């Protein structure tokens, strides 16, 4: 069924279709309408779920951790400083390998307070052990939330679905609501390997020694480092699993097909702009304008950021003359995080494109088409004038 609705409502509808059983969230701009919608759905009996009101984001994720451990499909959502307040539990959920799904409605971090969009919030959780997916439009939001539950439960790693505050959360766009019957065929009932069972009591995540050891019944148990190694390996497996899940989604719903990265005008591109989230769509207009002038440019949108899809990135970029990474985040005193990751992926390649970095739109500063056009044109026409430092677009306005 086609509707015209906000990105937050698209996310909430995805959670409803996935039949989440426990929702615990604390309202924060710009995530608030998402959780409001979910509480309405539960209140109206349109969702068979417990909506647990909590006093903080730390508690919200703690409730989800408890619920998921007890065998319930759980969901939360947050933004910005709410995500930071959650951080301890974010890392805990990943370490416990709980298949949770969380929407991060991207917003800049305080201090100073900002309610507007950039990617600094979810970037702080880049290495927390969650799968991170950045989506570009409303259809991708609803579809990815549904896929995220299946992915999380397939590899037992929690999944963050990140989408831009306001640009996506509060704008209205048409999208298709998947049919509940087909969603039920696509998404099997909740699964977690270590679901609590009173008939088989277990200690979970107690003090774990540096080395493996026998437990009270004499079974050899993993040491801390082996648990971490396995988590890393299965993060890598998640790249393949996500593609398999997307293929099944495509078969059932007739859309999808590029879950890891997606390109626009990339086939013959000499220069490729790279971005995450709604900025990737913004760049398409700039690409069209430069193409009209005869510049062979394309844009690559990175959806799966963790685990980092090295093969897909290399395949998409290693034939280009130049790569230009636009980012709404900065690793202070260093460079844009995505820029660093892409450079590292391309370094072992025999022929390497030049690679530039633009920092853009922090704390909601408007990104104009002319900004993007000027930046991309400068990178394509005068690449030798660039050094390895990121250039900041739109300062002093």
């Amino acid at each position, binding site marked *: 069924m086609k509707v015209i609705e906000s990105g937050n409502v698209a996310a909430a509808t995805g959670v409803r279709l996935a039949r989440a059983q426990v929702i615990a969230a604390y309202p924060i701009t710009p995530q608030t309408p998402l959780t409001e919608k979910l509480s309405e759905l539960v209140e109206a009996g349109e969702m068979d779920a417990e909506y647990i009101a909590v006093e903080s984001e730390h508690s919200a994720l703690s409730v989800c951790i408890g619920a998921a451990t007890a065998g319930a499909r759980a969901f939360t959502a947050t933004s910005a400083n709410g995500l930071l307040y959650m951080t301890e539990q974010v890392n805990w959920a990943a370490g*416990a*390998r709980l298949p949770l799904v969380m929407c991060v409605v991207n917003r800049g971090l305080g201090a100073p307070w900002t309610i507007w969009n950039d990617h600094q919030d979810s970037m702080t959780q880049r290495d927390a052990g969650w799968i991170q997916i950045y989506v570009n439009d409303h259809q991708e939001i609803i579809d990815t939330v549904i896929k995220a539950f*299946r992915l999380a*439960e*397939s*590899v*037992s790693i929690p999944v963050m679905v990140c989408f831009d505050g306001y640009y996506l959360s509060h704008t209205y766009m048409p999208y298709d609501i998947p049919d509940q019957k087909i969603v039920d065929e696509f998404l*099997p009932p909740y*699964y977690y*390997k*270590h679901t609590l069972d009173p008939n088989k*009591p*277990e*200690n*979970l*995540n*107690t*003090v*774990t*020694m540096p080395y493996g*050891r026998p*437990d*009270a*019944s004499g*079974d050899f*148990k*993993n040491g*801390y480092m*082996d*648990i971490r190694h*396995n*988590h890393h390996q*299965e993060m890598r*497996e998640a790249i393949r*699993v996500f593609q398999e899940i997307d293929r099944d989604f495509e078969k059932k719903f007739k859309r999808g097909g590029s879950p890891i990265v997606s390109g626009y005008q990339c086939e013959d591109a000499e220069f490729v702009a790279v971005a995450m989230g709604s900025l990737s769509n913004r760049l398409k207009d700039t690409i069209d304008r430069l193409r009209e002038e005869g510049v062979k440019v394309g844009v690559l949108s990175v959806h799966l950021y963790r685990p980092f899809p090295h093969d897909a990135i290399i395949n998409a970029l290693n034939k280009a003359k130049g790569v230009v990474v636009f980012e709404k985040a900065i690793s202070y005193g260093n460079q844009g995080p995505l820029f660093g990751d892409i450079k590292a992926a391309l370094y072992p390649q025999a022929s390497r494109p030049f690679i530039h970095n633009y920092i853009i739109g922090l704390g909601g500063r408007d990104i104009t088409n002319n900004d993007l056009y000027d930046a991309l044109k400068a990178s394509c026409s005068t690449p030798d004038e660039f050094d390895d430092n990121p250039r900041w677009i739109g300062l002093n306005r």
Partner: protein
Amino acid sequence: MNDPKCKVRTSNSTSGPGDAGKTGSWRVERPVFDYSKCTPAKRQKESCFLCWLYCPDAVISKELEPKVNLEYCKGCGICAEECPTGAISMVEDADIMEKENKTS
């Protein structure tokens, strides 16, 4: 539904004493029972067992005369705090060891 290639190695173990090694060495005070006050010992029937229930390390046995596994008891004192009849007192391990050394 689990991906067949994913083993999902976590820190899970049979609940019981010894999950953090022989934690008895952490102890400063140990619980000592006065069975003349202890409810199941006095009545000679299964009852109370609050010490067994509250022990965070599961090192107190559920017997008519409850026993403490001193290899793992950390000496936290929760059993002594919870005992409704005051049958458990916390005694300095050093004092007990000193006494044992004098007698031997």
